[in-house]
């Protein structure tokens, strides 16, 4: 694994321990998860115990120690999205992708996440697909968005 990017990320934050969470975010953005080797490198560069790094990486929900899929599907289940039917959407998405929130499909195409609030409450239920926000979601619209992404990949017309 090429660990040069990790080096550059730690340089960017001037080896500051206080920047640990930001560093881990950048590493995750680069590799789509936190690879073991990368964490070891961060630990040695920051002169920290690897256990401390694991502690932080597993405490905060944004981090993943397993590779994420190509497309990230994040469904908001904040209170506003909840009362407007968010749970119905997640039920359908779980059925469609055959995974639980926090997991990635076997073909590494989709990762499904739920978050507590994306702060776009006025137009809930809200779904974020590859950093793009979609408002006023319902089960059928959510399914269509994912099917469209899937079809693009294989080139098969629905």
């Amino acid at each position, binding site marked *: 694994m090429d660990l040069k990017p990790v080096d550059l990320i730690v340089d960017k934050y001037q080896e500051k321990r206080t920047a640990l969470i930001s560093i881990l975010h950048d590493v995750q953005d680069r590799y789509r998860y936190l690879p073991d080797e990368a964490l070891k490198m961060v630990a040695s560069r920051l002169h920290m115990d690897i256990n401390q790094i694991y502690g932080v990486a597993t405490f905060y929900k*944004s981090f993943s120690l397993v590779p994420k899929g190509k497309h990230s599907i994040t469904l908001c289940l904040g*209170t506003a999205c909840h*009362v*407007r039917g968010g749970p119905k959407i997640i039920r359908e998405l779980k059925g469609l992708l055959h995974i639980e929130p926090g997991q990635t499909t076997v073909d590494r195409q989709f990762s499904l996440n739920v978050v507590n609030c994306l702060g776009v*409450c*006025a*137009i809930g239920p809200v779904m974020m697909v590859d950093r793009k926000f979609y408002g006023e979601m*319902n089960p059928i619209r959510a399914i269509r968005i994912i099917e469209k992404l899937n079809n693009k990949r294989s080139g098969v017309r629905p």
Partner: protein
Amino acid sequence: MRRVKSVEDLEKWKNDILAKQKRHEMIVSVCGGTGCQAYGCQKVKAAFQKELTQKGMRERVTLKVTGCPGFCEKGPLVTIYPQNIFYQKVKPEDIPEIISETIKNGRKVEHLLFEDPSAHRKITSANDIPFYRSQMRLLLSRNDLIDPTHIEDYVAVGGYQSLAKALFQMKPTEIIEEIKTSGLRGRGGAGYPTGKKWENCRKAPGETKYIICNCDEGDPGAFMDRALMEGNPHSVLEGMGIGAYAIGANNGFIYVRHEYPLAHKNAEIAIQQARKAGLLGKDILGSGFNFDVEIAKGGGAFVCGESTALIASIEGRVGEPRSKQIHTVEQGLWGKPTNLNNVETWANVPLIINRGSQWFSSIGTEKSKGTKIFSLVGKVKNTGLVEVPMGITLKEIIFDIGGGQQDGKRIKAVQTGGPSGGCIPASLFDLTVDFESLTQVGSMMGSGGMIVMDEGTCMVDVAKYFVHFLQEESCGKCLPCREGLKRMGEILDSITEGKGDKESLTLLEELAEVVADTSLCGLGKTAPNPVLSALRYFRGEFEDHIYRKKCPAAVCTPLIQYSISEADCTGCGACSKVCPTKAIEGERKQSHHILLELCSKCGSCIDVCKASAVMVQ
């Protein structure tokens, strides 16, 4: 960018910017908040850019992407100044018409104006729309005038003048006195008097002190701080500068949650620009005062909104809270005295310094002063951010500003205070909104989430939702919160599955009491509030689930069943088209029926049925 070295420099800069702005006849301001982005405001902006350039009008018209004016539901929003014409739900294909009609000829584009739903008349200016009319927008009012990525826009509306006033005309103790007499209380939840907190931090022994801006807005259903940080980050920085000077701190942190990428980006840009302009860094405005700000990023942990957990997180550690026998104003970040306020609190500071504590304390109630921003969301017609004077009633917010019920279902409650708050029933909607009265009825102000619930919302499900939310977010350090919430969740699960019995509610209440009394930090201490308030006002719904095995709101799936009324079904086939599990059968123009073993109870069919033939029991 200009570097200002004195108050005179700042004044001159402001005048130069204003003179430059006058050369443009018109301003087109496009909302660039996250809500409008979801509706495609970037394409709207790009279309304006293209059209204006093609027509050679870039010199005459300023195009601005601004922060959130609050009416997210009607996005993308576009306002044309100086005429103050408010266009809603604007699409890229509307842009040529806006340019040829409004910008060239001063005529309004009728179909983009807001229509008053009761009077069916078109409204031109935002101020006349019922949603905005009853608001008092002190903090949010500048959001639609400012491009948050241009410090010049903030300076032009008088930005950083309060910092100049504080540095040159006031002693630190005078600033603290001013904030104390203003009656400003923390907008993050608990409502602790801001001036008193500053005073305690100033008096705490130690050379090095820190201030922190809490932008970890974790309460689900709340986005006031996001809108302020995205839309007007300099107002927060200015407030922090004033606070740092009053407290005697030279370093500040803004802790931004990971879920707010745009807030993070705009805060970063604002800090860099303020540094370049000499409004952050060494010898600010030639006063000899040094102050700089860094951004720390969250990692998706709700508990990090709690001050000691947030501090642990900035230090790069696991975000576990500690006991607060020693307050953070004495020992906070790296053991140094630390003053932490949330975004909205900091944003209020420049206003108070500029217009005076007397003016500020004239707004609001006896113990709650100023305005408060709420995120009015859920089952209400007009959703978005509303800024209102303290002391307004819930009824005014939900019905006058919010426009009342959304789709024919009666509003029955409003949830305030996030997972630490509670549900207030419609019978108490005459209640005034201030720190004390919301606590009295078993909820709290919290950071400002206001989630409206109607007959289609199951209160047992809402209680269960919050308990599971907090159980997930409990850091696990103390037992009552970690285990107690888990057990409470299990009891609520069993009730919503129709397995509750007569012991369930007694046990739930007993557990709630123990968790509240014995948890370490605020998260656990307040965690039972949503359950207790639901039991207090909606006990009947719990009993329906337990004894009748029914969910009156038709939400709890184990207790409901969908069916199609043969008599009403027109056989249009809309339901079978949207059914994700292909559970609906029927010939075209013949009555359809649902295969119960396939039905996932998602409710898609009920949403599309024009004949109201889908029934849920």
